[in-house]
């Protein structure tokens, strides 16, 4: 059954892409714009849903089955004895990814029908979306790093195409065509990703060189075997491989040092941001690392320290944690509604990467799933708000003065795109803090700008009190924001708490070394930031007072957009069920038995010597023998009970796990390091099975406090309606004197904040946002280290190689020399038959002489 249906995962999206690619424009233009659009959009959407159906079928098939199932599609290439088949690997890990990708993806398809309404390239958009689905499914179903890499590159391509989807916008922003900015953004994403890919290729090459294979199963088996056999060079090689994999993942999953592209990627249409740059594509780095868990655990076990400092799993954890905090801080300073979410995504991906590095693979996947729910929800909610603002602005214009490029609704959609070069600029140049203007010309243009042209539907400073005009959006957005902030009982709380619990559990209980301690602190701080910027965003967008006329005319988005939001809101609310923890250690012990294995015995300071007794009792030596008590996922919790009842009688101590840790039980067979832990080959860090009450309460309190603080401080004192003046955000830009004067009439706390905390914070966020992020990363790293050599190289190729060598033949001597030879040869080719005959004759003489004499 799996063999038969798995190929359809790939067939459906590619068929959709082909239909829309070849006939889309025709479909779109028939039967009136609306009708044609719906047909075209629903073709794409149905193909996505069909893939979702297949994913569900695969999920159901895997319930009593561990996998992995290898589905061979065809022989990719044969070189002598070297065969590379194109295979899909369907196992429980990929099934989770499949459900997320196709499920959330399908909802976003529906949303996109509403969002892209009126765009002249509607069908092209759906072509790309389906193409993306196709490649993403290749990525998560590939049975080898090579196939995965094909998907990896493919989603990069789709991302490139979609970020630059509005490459033809001809509105000028600061003197530059918006389309140019969009394509710059897409190029930036592409280039940044290539650097990550470079390391992927290194990792694969090294892998192939060492193990002679890139198949997951073979590589893992070979690595395990080599490790057991005590191969001396293996730790170093695996350390390098995992390091390269990490760097590859940092490219795709937007981590330090390659995260610069993701905020710019917001130039793409919002469904793209939701689908690729929040829910699915960017998580492929996490998937890659989780998939490679065996390699990471072997490195952890071997204790090989890179430069004598950290092991690669620890490096992974640090990378994730630092990124989480760093991006969280930047998110607090953003004004663009989508950029807040973009940095937030970077931050949350950091949580996942940190979890992977700490060996909490299940927690990482759990957070990946819930994050997909609520971040897609938030992005699409933001898109809905933007749409509403656009609509309001549009409305305003129809009554004011008609802008020629505003007639087309699709064109208007494009206005909320703020792309590469404006990054930062748009935010900072409008207020009076010490801002580096990046180009003088841009600054001048800015002054010339028509006031109305400055309207940016993505700028939160123009919003306010949206709740009055867009009630549905507001409700679901709040749910998403609470989920992201980690407030009980929303999905985000459970998943984020599991990561935090894992971290603190290991450093408190297991004494997992300084890494866990640092990671705990960093992640806790990042969680506070999360709650703060989400609260700030809620306040600025949905509450307070209207700050721009457009807001008054904002209206709720259409059904196609709202329906998926509601579904995702429900998922964000209930997603925690997926991996509900036990409420006490006693419960866990009673239920699972083996978790009683005490971690006190691991008091010698090394976490890797302290492992949970695996899940030995539930499936010990005969773990893979038959149907076990693996059950439940998603909202099928009722089914899960039934399944448990049916299959749970395997062991005498058959436990009805219920919904507790369902995801963990689901994933266990797919994560070989669990099995290796049981076999005492590696030692996975301890996982907290029950709620760590202290951590939970602490993080909840902190999150609530941060939320309250943001509501309390942000836009405080700006209750009166104002227009352009609202460009000024009290958090940053109000001159100290004026804040002092206004602050005096208010709480002293406010004054304290305004006068003391704010400048410090301001300076720090300025440092992070401008110096570190813009000047250092964007200007220095991206512009100098990456862009400049890239430009030099492309200039070299186009000018020197192409024009010089090919056309002029003058610059490089080789070309000249060759052409010289060519000219000499032409003399021989004289056109006279007898010369040709002579040549032939001499050839004969030469051959005959060689054969007779030689």
């Amino acid at each position, binding site marked *: 059954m799996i063999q038969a249906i798995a190929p359809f995962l790939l067939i459906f999206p590619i068929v959709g892409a082909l239909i829309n690619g070849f006939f889309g424009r025709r479909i779109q233009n028939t039967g009136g714009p609306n009708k044609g659009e719906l047909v075209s959009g629903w073709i794409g959407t149905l193909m996505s849903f069909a893939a979702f159906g297949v994913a569900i079928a695969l999920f159901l098939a895997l319930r009593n089955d561990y996998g992995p199932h290898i589905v061979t599609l065809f022989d990719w290439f*044969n070189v*002598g004895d070297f065969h590379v088949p194109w295979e899909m690997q369907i196992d429980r890990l990929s099934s989770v990814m499949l459900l997320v990708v196709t499920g959330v993806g399908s909802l976003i398809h529906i949303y996109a029908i509403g969002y892209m309404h009126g765009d002249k390239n509607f069908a092209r958009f759906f072509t790309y979306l389906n193409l993306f689905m196709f490649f993403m499914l290749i990525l998560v179903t590939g049975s080898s790093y090579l196939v995965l890499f094909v998907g990896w590159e493919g989603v990069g391509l789709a991302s490139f195409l979609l970020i630059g989807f509005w490459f033809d916008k001809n509105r000028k922003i600061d003197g530059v065509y918006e389309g140019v900015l969009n394509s710059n953004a897409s190029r930036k994403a592409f280039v940044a990703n290539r650097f990550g890919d470079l390391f992927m290729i290194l990792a694969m090459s090294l892998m192939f060189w060492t193990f002679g294979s890139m198949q997951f199963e073979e590589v893992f088996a070979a690595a395990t075997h080599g490790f057991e056999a005590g191969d001396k060079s293996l730790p170093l090689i695996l350390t390098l491989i995992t390091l390269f994999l990490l760097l590859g993942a940092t490219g795709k999953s937007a981590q330090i040092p390659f995260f610069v592209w993701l905020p710019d990627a917001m130039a793409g249409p919002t469904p793209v941001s939701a689908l690729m740059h929040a829910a699915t594509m960017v998580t492929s780095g996490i998937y890659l690392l989780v998939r490679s868990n065996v390699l990471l655990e072997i490195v952890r076990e071997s204790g090989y320290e890179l430069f004598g400092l950290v092991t690669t799993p620890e490096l992974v954890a640090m990378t994730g944690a630092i990124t989480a905090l760093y991006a969280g801080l930047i998110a607090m300073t953003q004004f663009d509604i989508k950029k807040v979410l973009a940095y937030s995504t970077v931050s949350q991906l950091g949580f996942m990467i940190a979890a992977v590095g700490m060996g909490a693979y299940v927690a990482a996947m759990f957070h990946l799933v819930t994050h997909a729910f609520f971040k897609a929800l938030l992005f699409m909610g933001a898109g809905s708000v933007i749409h509403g603002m656009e609509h309001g602005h549009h409305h305003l214009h129809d009554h004011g003065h008609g802008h020629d490029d505003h007639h087309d609704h699709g064109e208007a959609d494009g206005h909320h795109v703020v792309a590469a070069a404006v990054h930062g600029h748009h935010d900072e140049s409008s207020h009076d803090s010490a801002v580096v203007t990046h180009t003088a010309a841009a600054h001048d243009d800015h002054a010339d700008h028509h006031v109305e042209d400055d309207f940016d539907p993505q700028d939160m400073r123009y919003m306010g009190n949206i709740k009055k005009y867009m009630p549905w959006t507001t409700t679901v957005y709040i749910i998403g924001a609470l989920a992201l902030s980690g407030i009980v009982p929303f999905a985000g709380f459970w998943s984020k708490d599991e990561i935090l619990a894992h971290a603190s559990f290991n450093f408190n209980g297991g004494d997992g070394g300084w890494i866990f301690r640092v990671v705990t602190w960093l992640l806790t701080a990042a969680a506070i930031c999360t709650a703060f910027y989400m609260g700030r965003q809620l306040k600025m967008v949905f509450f307070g007072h209207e700050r721009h006329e457009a807001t008054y005319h904002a209206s709720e988005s259409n059904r196609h957009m709202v329906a998926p939001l509601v579904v995702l809101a429900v998922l964000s609310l209930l997603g925690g069920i997926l991996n509900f923890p036990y409420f006490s250690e006693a419960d866990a012990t009673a239920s699972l038995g083996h978790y009683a294995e005490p971690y006190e015995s691991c008091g010698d300071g090394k976490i890797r010597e302290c492992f949970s007794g695996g899940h030995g009792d539930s499936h010990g030596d005969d773990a893979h023998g038959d149907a076990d008590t693996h059950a439940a996922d998603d909202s099928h919790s009722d089914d899960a009970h039934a399944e448990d009842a049916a299959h749970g009688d395997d062991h005498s101590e058959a436990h009805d796990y219920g919904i507790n840790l369902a995801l963990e039980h689901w994933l266990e067979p797919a994560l070989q390091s669990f099995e290796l832990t049981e076999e005492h080959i590696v030692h996975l860090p301890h996982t907290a099975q029950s709620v760590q009450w202290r951590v939970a309460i602490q993080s909840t309190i902190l999150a609530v406090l941060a939320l309250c603080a943001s509501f309390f401080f942000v836009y405080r004192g700006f209750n009166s309606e104002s227009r352009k003046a609202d460009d000024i955000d009290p958090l940053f830009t109000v001159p100290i004197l004026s804040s002092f004067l206004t602050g005096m009439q208010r709480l002293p706390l406010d004054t304290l904040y305004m006068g003391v905390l704010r400048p410090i914070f301001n300076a720090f966020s300025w440092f992070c946002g401008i110096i570190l992020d813009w000047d250092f990363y964007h200007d220095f790293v991206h512009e100098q280290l990456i862009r400049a050599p890239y430009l030099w190289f492309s200039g070299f190729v186009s000018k020197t190689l192409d024009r010089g060598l090919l056309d002029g033949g003058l610059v490089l001597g080789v070309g000249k020399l060759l052409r010289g030879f*060519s000219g000499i040869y032409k003399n021989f080719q004289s056109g006279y038959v007898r010369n*040709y005959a002579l*040549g032939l004759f001499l*050839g*004969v003489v030469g051959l005959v002489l*060689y*054969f007779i004499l030689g």
Partner: protein
Amino acid sequence: MQFVEPTLNLSVILPIIILTFSTLLLMFVDFWVPDERKDITGWLSLFPLGGALTATFFQWDTIKGAFNSSVLQDNFSTYLSILYLITGMLSVLISIGYIRKRGHGRSEYYFLMLFSLVGMMLMGMANDLLIVFLALELLSIPLYIMSGFDRTDLNSEESALKYFLLGAFSSGFLVFGIALIYGAVGSTALPDIAEGIATSGTVGLAGIAMLLVGFMFKVGTVPFHMWTPDVYQGAPTSVTAFMSVGAKVAGFAALMRVLISSMGSMDEKWIPALAVIAAATMIVGNIAALTQTNIKRLLAYSSIAHAGYILMAVTASTKSDDGVGAALFYMMTYMFTNLGAFAAVMAMERFSGNKQLDLDDYKGMGKHNFAFAIVMMLLMFSLTGIPLTGGFVGKFYVFKTALEADLVWLVIIAALTSVVSAFYYMRVVFNMFMFDGEIDMPTVPNALKLVMAVAAIATLVLGVLPADWYTIAQNALMTTGG
């Protein structure tokens, strides 16, 4: 004296019988085709080809000899026959509209082409030098006529005469060489030669050298290549397309058969000679192409260069198991790509005045006709050997097989010359996309579009999913002996 009843096994030459007799039938039918509608004959000539192709498909995986084993049917010959027949079909398709204008409404063109195909098919099956000789002449003589088919065009006439004179000259060497081998060995059957050649002495060796000349001329390797540019340029383009693929592949077929099945034991002797010739061919072909301005002449030099790459695989074929497979696969990619490229040339060509065969005529094509330009670009990529095209995969296998045969220096030359080849192929692409220019392009007939599409798709398929096709080429093994 014992009378041995000869085994006829007509099934072996069934495709040839079908092709020959249905062509003869077609010649009669042609009497009733009015002069101004000779296109009909062209379309009808697809039927003999289709019939022969069908019959050939059924021959796959059967090995038989006929006529006292002077004709052999094995996967090698079957594979090649399929290539020829596909070449024939595509050539007929590109010829129809073209010959109407350049052939003065004569339909003999198609019969000549079909008979030439019979010769080509026999070249792959020949197991006796007599058959090789007859097949070679049967394929060549129609080509001489076809080259000069445009009687009023001086270029066409000139190319025909050059081709004919040099071709006849080289068959003089061929016959003399065969006579010497016959004298040294006592037979012209390849299995007999295989037994006797090692001890045949000077006479036999001289015979081999002269025999090789005949083949080398047909495939156009240095220094027997000099007719190629002139003939390719002057002949009607449809003929050029046909002979650049058909005649070349047939020449290599017979060369491989003779070398491997009858002279495999002497490979130490001929490998160095062929390797040097292959190297010279790649160098001369690619370098001479650099300064060409006429697209047909450029493609002529390019086809010389490709002959060098194929010869490299042939050279390696006794030392490496994959040599024959690599050569056969290369021929398949070469067939589609080259036919497509010439079809593209024909789409641009005008029949009077400025013939639009200059590279500069392609300037601005990217804007004028994007699809055409993309297909042309793809074909040029394939000829260059850029990944994801059939040309790359073909080169890859050829290089690999040569490395297995320890011809490292030859591979280095091949790799370097491939780089050089990028210069002139890319010039076509650059002209199309980087420059602006007025394009005066006639309406492209649908048949030409079809051929270009087939070529482009085949090039892509062979480039992206080569595994199955390469397996087929590898299975096209040659049987030795009778």
